[in-house]
């Protein structure tokens, strides 16, 4: 099911949580809403679900205007960060709830409900636990019950609000992989909210980066990571360093030093140069950025060093092989491989 969000505005007591947001989600896509807290990502998800009503704008499921429909009618599967399982019901009762509350005309017979619930518990690898109560399960198991419960109603879209936010790192990783598998198997159009960029990059077909109620960038993980379209996205996704530079004659300058970076077609003026610590080449001669090591720390298989560049205290981080001999005050020259300029 395709989802189209058209010019949606949502205000909470005059404060805009979403400011004229439009977004298209393709059928069968796994898409991540990513942003810092307060960026409006959860509000957007809740608007799609119908748990909030937009102040203005419309939301379409396929050709159908879903904004006119109640939550119940929208038939969405929603998974909450805190699971929101019914504690007075067993795992099986939780999963069958959505089918049991259907009006008699569309409600499957009891045996069929049970069969489908057990099948879903099988899908989420919880077979044998159907008689337990949610309190008797671990966090990861609870979230899987929540997902099975959401899938039981055969939702048109699946919406997940920070589904792994309450879990520890190990379980998160496992569930992430497993959610991708489930998605590939069931093919639901899925939107999930996260503030964890690693999760978004690894899991999603496309990312929607949000900030302060607006969409900053929409694209595949590669597009967003390699070609961030704003300083915000550059900062928010992955590691980045920024240096104040000037452009003159199609060349990037730091102070009075040319950096060997061509910027043809860029108007002369002040800019900030953004690049990622691992997208740099160490150079021995020629124009380059030159700095002295001010600090270093081990980051997984690499060593990240902080360089003091130029006389006015500008700093940048680059990655070196962990066995690089650079020590305190060592002089290092490098050139960014992938970089962007944004007006200062």
């Amino acid at each position: 099911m395709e989802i189209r969000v058209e010019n949606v505005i949502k205000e909470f007591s005059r404060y805009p949580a979403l400011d004229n947001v439009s977004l298209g989600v393709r059928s069968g896509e796994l898409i991540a809403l990513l942003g810092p807290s307060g960026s409006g990502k959860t509000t957007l998800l809740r608007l799609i679900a119908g748990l909030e009503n937009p102040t203005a704008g419309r939301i379409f499921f396929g050709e159908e205007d879903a904004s006119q429909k109640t939550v119940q009618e929208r038939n969405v599967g929603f998974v909450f960060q805190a699971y929101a399982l019914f504690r007075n019901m067993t795992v099986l009762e939780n999963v069958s709830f959505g089918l049991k509350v259907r009006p008699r005309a569309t409600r499957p017979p009891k045996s069929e409900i049970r069969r489908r619930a057990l099948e879903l518990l099988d899908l989420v690898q919880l077979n044998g636990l159907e008689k337990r109560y949610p309190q008797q399960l671990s966090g990861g198991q609870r979230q899987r019950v929540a997902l099975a419960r959401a899938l039981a109603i055969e939702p048109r879209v699946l919406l997940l609000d920070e589904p792994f936010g309450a879990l520890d790192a190990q379980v998160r990783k496992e569930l992430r992989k497993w959610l991708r598998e489930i998605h590939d198997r069931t093919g639901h159009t899925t939107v999930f909210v996260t503030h964890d960029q690693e999760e978004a990059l690894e899991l999603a077909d496309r990312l929607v980066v949000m900030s302060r109620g607006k969409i900053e960038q929409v694209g595949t993980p590669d597009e967003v990571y390699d070609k961030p379209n704003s300083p915000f996205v550059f900062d928010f996704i992955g590691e980045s360093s920024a240096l104040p530079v000037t452009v003159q004659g199609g060349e990037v300058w730091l102070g009075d030093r040319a950096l060997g970076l061509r910027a043809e077609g860029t108007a002369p003026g002040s800019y900030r140069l953004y690049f990622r610590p691992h997208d740099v080449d160490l150079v021995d001669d020629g124009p380059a950025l030159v700095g002295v090591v001010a600090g270093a720390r081990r980051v997984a298989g690499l060593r990240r060093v902080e360089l003091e560049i130029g006389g006015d205290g500008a700093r940048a981080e680059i990655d070196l092989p962990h066995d690089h001999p650079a020590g305190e005050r060592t002089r290092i020259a490098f050139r960014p491989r992938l970089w962007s300029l944004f007006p200062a």
Partner: protein
Amino acid sequence: MRPSVIPGFGLSLGYTLTWLSLIVLIPIIGLFLKAAQVPLDEIVKIATAARTWHALEVSFGSSLIAALVNVVFGVLIAWVLVRYKFPGKRLLDAIVDLPFALPTAVAGIALSALYAKKGWVGSLFTPGGPLNEWIAAQTWLPFGLSSFQFDWKIAYTPSGIVIALIFIGLPFVVRTVQPVLEEFEAELEEAAATLGANRLQTITQVILPRLTPAILTGFALAFARAVGEYGSVIFIAGNIPGVSEIAPLLIVIKLEEFDQAGAAVIAGIMLLIAFAMLLVINLIQAWARRRFGDV
């Protein structure tokens, strides 16, 4: 026993037991000792007397009805106070506690004045009263409904007792359910809605089960309070032996006749029944707590 991480177990338990003994246990033991002075055949005679049985029946029966009524309306009031914003909400919230503070005799007198034949409410249900006259005037009603007439005497009957007990027990249910409802996660209701449940299904299958332990607590408190109530009831009950005479009143009557042993016997029986009932409610609560999660 292994020493606990939290220090002071011995001290606090000793303190608790001493206090409980001084305040609760010793008076109760005294009561049973007093009752034990009575020869056994005398105890049996008092216990099986028709008047005693009627009094116990009236006491426990009306307390049960009152507590059940309070459960329904107490939960409703708690719901309204928690879920809606309206002007005067704080005021209403404070009014709920009034039955706690009002001297129960005052409540009894006020209620009997209201529910007496000539009282504002009582007159409505008296033959010839304004409500009955109005019904009689509605000649357009089908099935001869207009000839229906209320003839319900409330004050000075068992109905009056129930009204008084509802009055004094109401705050217990409201005040036990209210905090639980306040902490109820909105997400659970939202989850039920996304799964297609309508409001009625959400309330009966998701919200009420979670409130069950709190409702039981409120019920037990309101019930226990009603069983022991004296002040308000004697003004509205009419106190006709065998009809609207409550057990506490019978105890007072015995005392006034200098029959302290008889009073102790009836009090002992009351205590045993009340204790048994509260124990059962507690067990149900413990079960509900296990079943529906701790509340």
